[in-house]
């Protein structure tokens, strides 16, 4: 689900996960490092919803489709 619903919390939606990931893209980031940072935050309960790696990829596709991130040298960067 891109947007939250009655049974999908904001943190479980791609929109919520996207907002979180966007906060992590402060410089050029590889997919692996984003996944590792998320796993780290999840283990410390700094992000509450569990997402699969597939969801992370879907979320990045979503962020790319709305024009907030782009690919640079094999990594993810924010659009200016």
């Amino acid at each position, binding site marked *: *689900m891109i947007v939250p*619903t*009655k*049974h*999908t919390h904001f943190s479980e939606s791609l929109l919520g996960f996207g907002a979180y990931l966007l906060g992590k893209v402060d410089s050029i980031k590889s997919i692996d490092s984003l996944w590792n940072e998320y796993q780290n935050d999840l283990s410390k309960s700094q992000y509450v919803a*569990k997402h699969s790696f*597939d*969801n992370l990829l879907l979320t990045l596709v979503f962020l790319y489709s709305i024009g907030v991130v782009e690919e640079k040298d094999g990594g993810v960067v924010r659009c200016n």
Partner: protein
Amino acid sequence: MNVQERSVARILFKNKIHEANGQAFEDIFTQTMYYAHEGFQSIKPWGNIGDRKNDGYIKSEGTYYQVYAPEDITKSYVDFVKKIETDFIGLVEQWSPVNNFYFVVNDKYRGVNADCEQLIQGLKDTYKLKDAKILTAKDLENEVFSLEDDQIFRIVGFLPDPSNLKNMDFSILNEVISHIMGLPIDLKKEPSLVVPDFNEKIKFNDLSEVTAEYLNSAFVRVVYLNDYLSNNSDFIADLLRDKLNEVYLQEKEKYSGDELFWNIVNQLSPKKQQVYQVTVIVIMSKYFETCDIFEEPFKEGEE
């Protein structure tokens, strides 16, 4: 052990066999043989003399065992065939009398190829043995499960105590959810955002006290369902809602009240057994509370 305990023990044993290569497999074999055959004696490899091609034997019968446990038998069939012959020739040179010869191999339940079977039969005929066979994981399993319960536990490990398990059986939940997801229906209805009073909704939908009791007690365990759903968060909660809603819309054409409730339970249960039905009612109570199934009560002035 009852049938269920025995089935779980067999699964544990199979896992052990799949993980056991080399010495680990030989240890399982030796332990089993010590329990199963009183006169069995294992032979430990010793310095530069090794085990003289004998991993274990029953002296009074002249029965000898050689054990072989490669990581992947299919990758080493040439070595395997060679090993049977060289080990046997080495054995008869150093031990006598050899009446029976068993080559024990960890085939990981895949079976052995025709060459090996023909070779061992050839050895049996040439050396006039009473018996010669390749014993595989299934033979060892049969040997293990002919033992006393305490001996089986010693080999496979102790079974988990069901009373120590949590309130909700997650394997059953998983099975029920997989079953619901596989139901072949496709009707669409937008989810309602109304969350009415649980008890009021029970009355409004003409559900009896007994059914209400089932729903109420199941609702206590919705916390475990939510926990499960949040750990498997690939929008499964929404998909589950859709499926439940579809079944509800279909069944409400034919039934109402308790009959409707129990028909939905039976539709959603993979088997007509209490464990599944109870789990289905937990799932139903979650979506009952949020008005995704059954009708929401009208207030005065509403249509």
